[in-house]
């Protein structure tokens, strides 16, 4: 009963919030609704009893990824509307609509065919974090480690890109110019 109500609340609010993200011309609205939508998605995990994943959704998407987006947004004037450029609105509408239709068919086909099976069903007595850990370190060990190495590479690359020429001050650069005056040259 409670799950039923909660599911519909979360579903409706997620849909509306992501609609705003797509439709709005204002960067601030789009960003806010995207972040709020991420929070609402974590609600689904909590309903399904996957507390750990719900919290990870909160921390990773809301706390880190979206915060980085919004940090980039600070370089723009967030209060202004953006002028969008549509060269061919019918084509965009058609392609977008087709994509949405394909996704709906893909995801609803197993539901209609009634053959969904959980490959890793919830085991009683095993906590959420433990269950994720067991799967992560047995079946998905290689992808997990590869992802870790990729992130490490990305981090090192980021540090190098950002840290290039860090020993030179941008504000206190003293450029020693050769004096153009001949007398000054001689006195030097």
């Amino acid at each position, binding site marked *: 009963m*409670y799950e039923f109500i909660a599911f519909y609340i979360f579903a409706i609010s997620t849909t509306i919030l992501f609609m705003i993200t797509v439709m709005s011309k*204002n960067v*601030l*609205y789009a960003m*806010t609704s995207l*972040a709020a939508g991420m*929070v609402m998605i974590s609600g689904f995990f*909590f309903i399904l009893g996957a*507390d*750990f994943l719900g*919290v*990870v959704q*909160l*921390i990773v998407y*809301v*706390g*880190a990824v979206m*915060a*980085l987006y*919004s*940090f980039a*947004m*600070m370089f723009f*004037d*967030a*209060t202004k509307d953006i002028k969008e450029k549509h060269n061919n609105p019918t084509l965009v509408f058609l392609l977008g609509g087709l994509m949405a239709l394909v996704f709906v068919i893909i995801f609803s086909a197993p539901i209609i065919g009634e053959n969904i099976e959980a490959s890793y069903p919830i085991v009683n007595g095993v*906590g*959420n*974090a433990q269950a994720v850990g067991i799967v992560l370190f047995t079946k998905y060990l290689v992808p997990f480690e590869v992802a870790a190495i990729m992130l490490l590479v990305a981090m090192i690359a980021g540090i190098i890109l950002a840290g290039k020429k860090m020993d030179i001050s941008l504000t206190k650069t003293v450029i020693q110019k050769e004096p153009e005056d001949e007398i000054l040259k001689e006195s030097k």
Partner: protein
Amino acid sequence: MDATILPEVTAVGVIIKAVLILAVISAIAGFGTYIERKVLAFMQRRLGPQHVGPYGLLQLAADGIKLFTKEDIIPQHANKIIFSVAPAITAATAFIALAAVPVFPDFTIPFVDVFVPSIASDVNVGILFVLGMMAAGLYGPLLAGMAQSNKWGIIGSARTAIQFLSYEVVTGLSLLAPIMMVGSLSFVDFNDYQSDGTWLVVYQPVAFVLFLIAGYAETNRTPFDLLEHEAEIVSGYVTEYSGMRWGMFFIGEYANMITIGVIASVVFLGGYNDWWIFAGWFMILAKIAFSFFFMLWVRAAWPHVRPDQLMWLCWKVLMPLAVINVVITGLVMMAG
């Protein structure tokens, strides 16, 4: 604590608990402003608020009346919706974080026989939930700064974003070592782990200090309160706010202070176990009160750091220390 003895947690009990947390914590958060002013005044040999009520106790009511009746100003070029929503985000996330934290002990309301649990929602990943909610609390200052079209506001919210993102790393890593020792993310397990009287701070002093430092940075307390540093950026992200909207930021900040105090008490300082002749409820209240007092004490004693020192401290000192602490804890656990 055996789970079978406990009566069933009903929806009514949880709702009562939620209302209780909301009422009591917002009252305490308001009262915290009085305590802060009083303690800071005493430490500077002043008297503090004194004229409203006995010893100035009703100053809280006077402030409340003032905040509620003040004109609600929305700047002309601000984004009105986001501007109005932002304070609510700060206050709401602070209180949602308290949903997974044990605030008072269990009790049963007599006559109607409703069991009120100590934790409103006992998710078994309590610590992560609180950290995640405090991470989401970043959006309050962030959106407030971006919506108000004020340069001080946007500088303030940029500082908020940097500071929160950086220090979340330290908070998470410093809590990771005790989490590894206990092997659970639930506050109740942390409490039970320390029921033999040895507090986790004995095993994890480095993690405790790191957590306190990062917690002060995340609650915007003094050695790191650069988000609304008056001397540099008028009032940071609250520059354009007035009246009750400003008050909501304030309540959120104080509720976060209490949350940090609760986490420090439960994870590191022995939780709500009985100690010597004192009952558990008294111990947890005393610990939270002391950590609150310590925040005020630190504010009276220590100066600010500069923003660059703040980042330097986070990424070059605290984070490596936290990682080393985690590695050493892991090695010791594997050996032992």
